């Protein structure tokens, strides 16, 4: 009596597994198609002459030509791209320079302020960019009157606010994975000052988290449109919008480049982060943390 029941059970479980596999594949396929169709359409649009439908690579030739006097209408695109790339670097630098030491300090010296810090960092999530601009406009008007001037790159200050929630989450996850208090105290008793602790203890152990937060920052800055548009600054997205009005094929080609470029960046950084983590902790071991009450493998001596 037992055997048929078992067989029936196994067969039932097998069927359920197969059904789940089919469902998984279907969802994955539909998702992939839904995402790829617009991308393919974007690519197709960029290589066909709109009126005749014939293959036409002029948009790509304009992009490959880069910033030349021949294609004056594309000038905003290049200056927007330059501004956005500079802002990526600046925003990452300001974000890390502000957030990392603050988070480390709060963890080590003011744990009671942790909730407040989290609240402040997550606040931008609940403030629409339009509302943010209302508050930022007077600040940027004031900045324009200072030696900093009205250069687009100072949008980085606003972007730091925008990326705070994402960067905070990434860094917070990294900090939770190490016993920061013990490591910092060990370094201090051995003679390490705060800057040494930050550079030689915290940063190397948080490398994957720092890479993640930096990537999120780059992604947000490269894709930002609202704040730049409303503050009348020219970044990559606003330039794309402007170019789209006069030469939509170039805008489509550029959007395709950006999309694939960003994806490539994501994959590269992810691989880099994984490899860094593996180098530091081979065999996917747990990061060292408070080992109270455990003795992992016994003493080999």
């Amino acid at each position, binding site marked *: 009596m037992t055997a048929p029941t078992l067989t029936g059970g196994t067969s039932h479980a097998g069927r359920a597994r197969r059904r789940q596999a089919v469902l998984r594949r279907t969802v994955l396929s539909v998702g992939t198609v839904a995402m790829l169709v617009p991308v393919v359409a974007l690519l197709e649009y960029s290589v066909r002459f709109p009126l005749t439908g014939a293959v036409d690579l002029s948009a790509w030739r304009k992009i490959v030509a880069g910033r030349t006097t021949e294609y004056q209408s594309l000038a905003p695109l290049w200056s927007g791209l330059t501004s956005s790339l500079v802002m990526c670097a600046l925003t990452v630098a300001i974000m890390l320079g502000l957030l990392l030491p603050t988070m480390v300090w709060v963890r080590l010296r003011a744990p009671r302020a942790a909730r407040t810090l989290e609240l402040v960092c997550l606040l931008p999530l609940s403030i629409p960019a339009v509302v943010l601009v209302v508050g930022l406009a007077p600040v940027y008007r004031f900045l324009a009157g200072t030696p900093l001037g009205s250069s687009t790159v100072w949008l980085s200050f606003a972007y730091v606010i925008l990326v705070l929630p994402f960067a905070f989450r990434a860094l917070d996850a990294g900090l939770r994975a190490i*016993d920061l208090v013990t490591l910092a*105290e060990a370094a201090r008793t051995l*003679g390490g000052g705060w800057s*040494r602790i930050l550079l030689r203890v915290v940063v190397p152990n948080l490398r994957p988290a720092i890479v993640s937060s930096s990537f999120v920052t780059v992604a947000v800055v490269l894709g930002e449109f609202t704040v730049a548009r409303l503050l009348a600054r020219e970044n990559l997205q606003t330039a794309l919008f402007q170019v789209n009005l006069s030469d939509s094929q170039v805008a489509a080609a550029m959007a395709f480049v950006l999309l694939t470029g960003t994806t490539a960046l994501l994959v590269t950084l992810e691989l880099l982060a994984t490899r860094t983590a593996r180098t*530091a902790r081979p065999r996917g071991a747990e990061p*060292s943390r408070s080992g*109270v009450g455990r003795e992992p493998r016994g*003493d080999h001596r």
Partner: protein
Amino acid sequence: MITQSAPTVPASDAGPRPETLDVATARRRTADGDASDVVLDGLWRRLGDVQALAGMSLTVPAGTLVALLGPSGCGKTTALRVLAGLEDLDAGAVRVAGRDVSHVPAHRRDNAMVFQAFSLMPHMTAGENVAFALELRGVPRRARAAIVDEHLELVGLGSHRDRYAHQLSGGQQQRVALARALAVRPSVLLLDEPLSALDAKVRVSLRDEIRRIQSQTGITTLFVTHDQEEALVVADQVAVMRAGAVVQVDTPQGLYQRPRDEFVATFIGATNRVRALASDGTALVEGWGPVPLLPGSAQGEVTLLVRPEHVRVGAADSRGARVADVSFLGTHAQVRVALPGRLDVVAQLRVDDAASLRPGDAVGLTFDTVPALAVERSAADGVDVR
């Protein structure tokens, strides 16, 4: 015997390595009243609602290992952290080698500490961890490798130099942490329950190694623990703490044999509570004759604190004592004897002596004439119904 290079002197310029210390030298220096003692003078520290330190004072003689022993929450770790500079002081002073370091930041105090939690840098190998400590103390790069090797050898992990923390067992990680602390040749070595996270066997082996290494190097060491056996085995002197203050400081033997008060007597080792009448330095235990008293004992109707190894079990007498149970503990046996109307008395006997005893056997009790502490009788000691 280990020698250690001074961290600030490049190896090539160092000439003969600085002095080799052994514990005998250290003791000689201490006996001469060397100013390099570590002095905690009237420390006060409040942590939230808890008065962690309440006028705690302690002198750690140079070159010795002093264990700070006490129950959880007695302030021993706070005292260590104050000495390390990791905790601020509300009042009092910390002096190392005659210099007041009370307000010197932790990284300028010339201490090194081994923590209860594993504290090796996870992104560095064992060797890099030790070298990192030397780097923090400004030891030139070319001098580091030799010191790293020397200290990893000292803790028996010379072949584990290139392993990361997660590739080492808990005991090995604490050994590397010890090597890292010793390598910087600190004025004071601070050990904050470094064995608590280890299993029993490793704990004993590392405990013995700490004792050996401290004797070899002669580094002034403060060892915090809540494990009385650990403290008694490792330390030259043991300071017992209670409620933020040191109750008694003595050698392990002195502490065990001459406890100053009831807390120390009951915290260190096991004790029996026996009602007695005390006067003129002697306690009369009804029917059992006089027992000499330790200084500081109470007078009048008292409770005598008697160690189980000072209780003898013999032929039955008129007191009606009977064996309640017998436990064999390998090296000795523990016999619990019930007395009518009194608290049970526990005797520690040789296994052979206890072999013939069975629960319910009528027996008689006697006490060795070893000085014992008499304390005020409390309600917990029961009413004498005789």
